[in-house]
């Protein structure tokens, strides 16, 4: 098997090489074009980003507007207000069970939420952390009502969340539970995908973790092009955009 794979590989690659030796008159031209257009695009993106940096507020607004346009439920608040907001949301959405990411900040915020909710005797919400392997948690994950995690960053132009899978933020956290609640620091909003890529120095990196852009709750229009929200992924996406508390 291994050897024949190698043989097939060599056969294909050598055929491709021979085929491409038939030069296209346009070829040389397009190569330079590709170069200039590539140079042009990030440059354009860069200027947008520096512009955007001086209008950070605008960037937040643009993000919220587009994220809302993507059918996500969006909130904006100060970092210290998150627990109260989260409490309200859990009640309002009738969320009785929650799975938490392993991020320390999420842990802390959820503890504060529970403390706040102590006086609310009607409130109850089971929770667990995604700290074991999927195989052990599978059943609970397919039953839990919602998940809570913090996103790596956001993209204003398209209203997207960037989520990197790590040991603290497993891939299925944003996939299996019907409601996905995401915290996003306003410090981490980029103008668009291009600016995110150049800021994360991806062009010089040779590898990256599994990364995901999420732009709304799952949806489909397969039946008669009628848009239906909630097919396989979450039915609902809730985004809490917060301004970080000033460190004293």
């Amino acid at each position, binding site marked *: 098997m291994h050897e024949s794979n190698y043989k097939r590989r060599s056969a294909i690659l050598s055929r491709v090489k021979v085929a491409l030796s*038939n030069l296209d008159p346009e*070829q040389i031209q*397009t190569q330079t074009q*590709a170069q200039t257009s*590539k140079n042009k695009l990030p440059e354009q993106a860069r200027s947008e980003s520096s512009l955007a940096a001086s209008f950070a507020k605008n960037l937040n607004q643009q993000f919220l507007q587009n994220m809302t346009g993507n059918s996500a439920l969006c909130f904006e608040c100060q970092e210290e207000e998150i627990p109260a907001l989260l409490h309200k949301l859990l009640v309002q959405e009738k969320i009785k069970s929650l799975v938490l990411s392993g991020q320390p900040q999420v842990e802390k915020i959820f503890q504060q939420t529970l403390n706040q909710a102590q006086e609310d005797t009607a409130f109850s919400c089971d929770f667990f952390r995604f700290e074991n392997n999927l195989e052990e948690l599978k059943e609970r994950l397919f039953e839990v009502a919602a998940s809570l995690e913090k996103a790596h960053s956001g993209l204003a132009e398209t209203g997207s969340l960037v989520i990197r899978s790590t040991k603290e933020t497993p891939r299925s956290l944003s996939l299996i539970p019907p409601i996905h609640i995401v915290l996003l620091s306003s410090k981490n909003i980029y103008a668009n995908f291009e600016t995110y890529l150049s800021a994360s120095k*991806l062009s010089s990196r040779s590898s990256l973790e599994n990364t995901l852009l999420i732009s709304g709750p799952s949806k489909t229009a*397969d*039946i008669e*092009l009628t848009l239906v929200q909630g097919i396989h992924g979450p039915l609902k996406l809730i985004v809490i955009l917060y301004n970080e508390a000033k460190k004293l």
Partner: protein
Amino acid sequence: MEKTFTKNVKQALNNPVLRANYRKALDALAEKRKTAFADISLELPARREAAYALRLNSLHKLPELLSQLEQKLNENGIHVHWAQTPQEANQIAESILRQNNAKKIIKGKSMITEEIRLNDYLEEHGFNVIESDLGEFIVQLAGEKPAHIVAPIIYKNKEQVAKLFAEKLNFHGSSAEELTHAARQFLRKEFYSADAGLSGVNFAVAQTGTLCLVENEGNGRFCTTIPPLHIAFMSLEKVVEKFSDVPLLYSMLCRSASGQKITVYFNMISKPRQKDEKDGPQHVHLIILDNNRSTILSDPLLRKTLLCIRCGACMNNCPVYTNIGGHAYDAAIPGPIGKILMPQIAGMEKYGHLATASSLCAACVEVCPVKIPITDILLKLRAQATSLKNLSFKQRLYSGKLAEKIAFMLWAYIFSSPLRYKLFLKMLHAFPALIPLKVRFTPMLRQWTKTRDFPMPR
């Protein structure tokens, strides 16, 4: 094949429900695409040019990019397999599945697995394959084939879907929402218990060894995240050089395909589950398929067929596709791109006739986000199919081949301008006697004009 095609066309044209389903959906899709580009209409020509240049650049560098991709994927822990033919690709998939003792397989939407008829192969070999994209799931339930590369059940209305669900799933509901949620319930169980997930690849980034997957539903994510084994399939032209190439191509794909600025999910798969990770498949394999593409590459014009990013805009805007529908082509990829791709990958004998099923109106060329010269390629394939070279002028004249060529050139001339086209229509209405003449030259139109008027240019 050609006979079947003519029969299919006849049947499709005589089915008013079918044609209404298509017309409604395709008009909406074409309209959505237009609005999707409204905010960047001034930049559109530059973006298309840039997207074309990026794709062409990766085609020209294919050997090095494919080697680099393989090396990076290996470093990331993803196994790479090479397949020259559909048969080889199917066998490789089968052997990976057997090695992992996988029997139940959940599948995301992928055109390449249609091309190699993977489902048929795996089912014949005793595997249980379940399609999970809503449209593909419905197609599979009905025992049919997808009719569009982006909207597989474009030919069905919701009453037909409701009837199918009642029969096969014992679910009774009628709205798109009810039906969609019923499918969600059903498929969640399958995601839970599947032994392996299969998917296609939209772009493979050589620089980082990353497989990008574009979708709205989340089933692609399920297939590539939950089962312990993930097998991805791609044809060799899907590779792009750098990560910085991706945003533009992705944006062009979304806007052209469904009129969205961005899809719900953009999945950048780089590694199987890492030591400290809690989820993700333990094993990830990629099968890279040639299937005659290395031959297509040898012609500088035909090569451009492989620039395609499978957005479907050419079908949504094609007057022929709108009227005969996707199934009439009897091909994994229908519509304008199918007409140029299928004869080249699956043979002229089988699909050469598709190259004639075009009015050369060039609507497809106008909307293609990567500027594939579809009509030029069609003409070249047509010339190959009719192999004019072997005949003398006299023979050509009397055999009708030359007449055909002249007629097509005329058609190309008329259809290439909306004004000329309108004038031509007016003329036809004024002088109906002209109709038999043109009908004699284009076999497709004989079927077409029997049942309908000429479409007005969009």
